[in-house]
């Protein structure tokens, strides 16, 4: 009897995952979707524990308690600005779990067939690359490692040699099963190295792409493990996550007008080969004090706020919400323009604004807001830089040429809140700052906005 029930429960859990993800299509139904998916997971765990092969419940219990406790603490403590690190870390743990399950399946005392060996190789390879690669991404985002690309000569050749040696080891293990155990161990070690070497040459600005890609890998690792232990629940859930990660990776790449290969292998933001910034000494910027701008704000009909990661770093999102409420009371329409690569991971800026109780229906993405800039009286750029650089539209020499940008320069007046004239993450001069309709307000974003709020009151 048991043998019929277990796969049926697995099927239910897969259905719950799909329904849960579908409910994520709207912020209103999304919390329910998350619960639905969690129930799916609970069902899968219960079904597995019903399996009569399981003899040792005590060890399982210990593992579940320890893992749940650590997970709960991490989930409760994390700051919203640190969400990318946490997701990177979780990706890594998912990959690590797949690696270990693949290895556990291999090292159990049963005669191996060639097919199992092949799937074990794929599962430990993807699992190990996801694990070590995610830990490097985590360290870069957390500031434990330098964010800039770490490059050395012959990097690509070394990666190539490592990849080929994994294949050779797998073939060797098939032909000489007595050595298979050592071969698999070597494959694991090499894959861990490969994961590190794969992520270290990628710069901090490209981390959103890498996290999305590793997200996909963590799903594919689960999927590969599903082939090892011949379990459809793992295959289905793993492919859903794999697909999700690939979609997000693609959106991120389009947001920067780059291909995934360019992100992975070119390391933008490194010092080599780029000319230093040349600023035309004839170009000048206008700068106002916050107090001088109040009249312009009060007389505006529509204001668009462009938040960047700098806003979250300055913890200015609550103050921005204050500003929004004040302006709306005076009859001004306030909208937020969110660039696809704003923040440090897909959708990061939306979460940071949601945390400050800013309603999600005042957030607009690039395609929705760009036609509106011409009718916008004031655009307020806070801590964003490259995503509003008009050079992306026309300057073929610019490293960001072709990247879709927010056309803020088309609005009547642009205020740019910035600490200093230092160039942004990618180290590119921003011609927006020198436009006639642009006014710089230097200083800490939170201070500046609180001064504005004070004056408007």
């Amino acid at each position, binding site marked *: 009897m048991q043998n019929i029930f277990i796969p049926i429960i697995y099927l239910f859990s897969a259905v719950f995952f799909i329904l849960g993800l579908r409910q994520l299509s709207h912020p209103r139904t999304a919390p329910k979707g998350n619960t639905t998916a969690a129930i799916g997971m609970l069902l899968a765990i219960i079904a597995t524990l019903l399996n009569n092969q399981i003899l040792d419940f005590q060890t399982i219990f210990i593992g579940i308690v320890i893992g749940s406790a650590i997970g709960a603490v991490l989930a409760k403590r994390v700051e919203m600005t640190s*969400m990318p690190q946490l997701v990177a870390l979780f990706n890594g743990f998912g990959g690590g779990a797949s690696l270990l399950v693949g290895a*556990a399946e291999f090292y159990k005392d049963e005669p191996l067939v060639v097919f199992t060996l092949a799937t074990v190789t794929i599962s430990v390879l993807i699992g190990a690359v996801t694990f070590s690669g995610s830990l490097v991404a985590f360290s870069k985002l957390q500031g434990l490692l330098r964010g800039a690309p770490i490059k050395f000569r012959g990097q690509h050749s070394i990666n190539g040699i490592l990849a080929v040696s994994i294949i050779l080891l797998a073939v060797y293990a098939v032909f000489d099963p007595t050595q298979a155990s050592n071969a698999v161990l070597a494959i694991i070690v090499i894959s861990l190295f490969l994961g590190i070497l794969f992520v270290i040459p990628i710069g901090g600005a490209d981390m959103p792409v890498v996290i999305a890609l590793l997200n996909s890998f963590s799903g594919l690792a689960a999927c590969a493990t599903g082939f090892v232990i011949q379990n459809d629940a793992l295959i289905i859930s793993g492919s859903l996550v794999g697909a999700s990660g690939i979609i997000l990776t693609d959106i991120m790449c389009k947001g920067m007008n780059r291909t995934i290969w360019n992100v992975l292998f070119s390391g933008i933001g490194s010092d080599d080969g780029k000319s230093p910034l040349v600023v035309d000494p004839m170009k000048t910027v206008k700068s106002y004090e916050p107090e001088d701008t109040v009249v312009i704000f009060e007389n505006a009909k529509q204001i668009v706020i462009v938040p960047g990661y700098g806003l979250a770093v300055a913890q200015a999102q609550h103050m921005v919400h204050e500003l929004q409420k004040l302006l709306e009371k005076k009859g001004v329409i306030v909208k937020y323009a969110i660039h696809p690569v704003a923040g440090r991971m897909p959708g990061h800026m939306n*979460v940071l604004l949601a945390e400050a109780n800013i309603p999600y229906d005042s957030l607009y993405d690039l395609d929705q807001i760009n036609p509106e800039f011409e009718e916008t009286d004031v655009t307020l750029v806070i801590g964003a830089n490259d995503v509003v650089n008009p050079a992306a539209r026309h300057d073929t020499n610019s490293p960001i040429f072709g990247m879709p940008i927010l056309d803020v320069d088309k609005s009547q007046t642009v205020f740019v809140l910035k600490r200093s004239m230092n160039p942004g993450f990618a180290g590119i001069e921003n011609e927006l700052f020198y436009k006639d309709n642009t006014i710089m307000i230097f200083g800490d974003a939170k201070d500046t906005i609180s001064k504005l709020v004070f004056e408007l009151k």
Partner: protein
Amino acid sequence: MNAQLLVEIYVFVLAVFVGFEVISKVPPTLHTPLMSGSNAISGITIVGALLATGSLPGTLSATLGLIAIILAMINVVGGFMVTGRMLRMFKK
């Protein structure tokens, strides 16, 4: 190639299509919760970890499985909790 493998490949290919269909409908504003939530789902490896730990007591596989249970549960519990925390912040 055995029949079971073939069925698994069918399941895999169809699930990828379902994944693309369902996830392409998630709006950009929810992409971070999507990532953390799908991450929790990839903790489904817990199934393999439980089997490895529970069915082979005292072996190397069981030890590897125990570490896998811990990692996968961090992923599952942490992932769903943090996703819930984020989603509750989205207000109209």
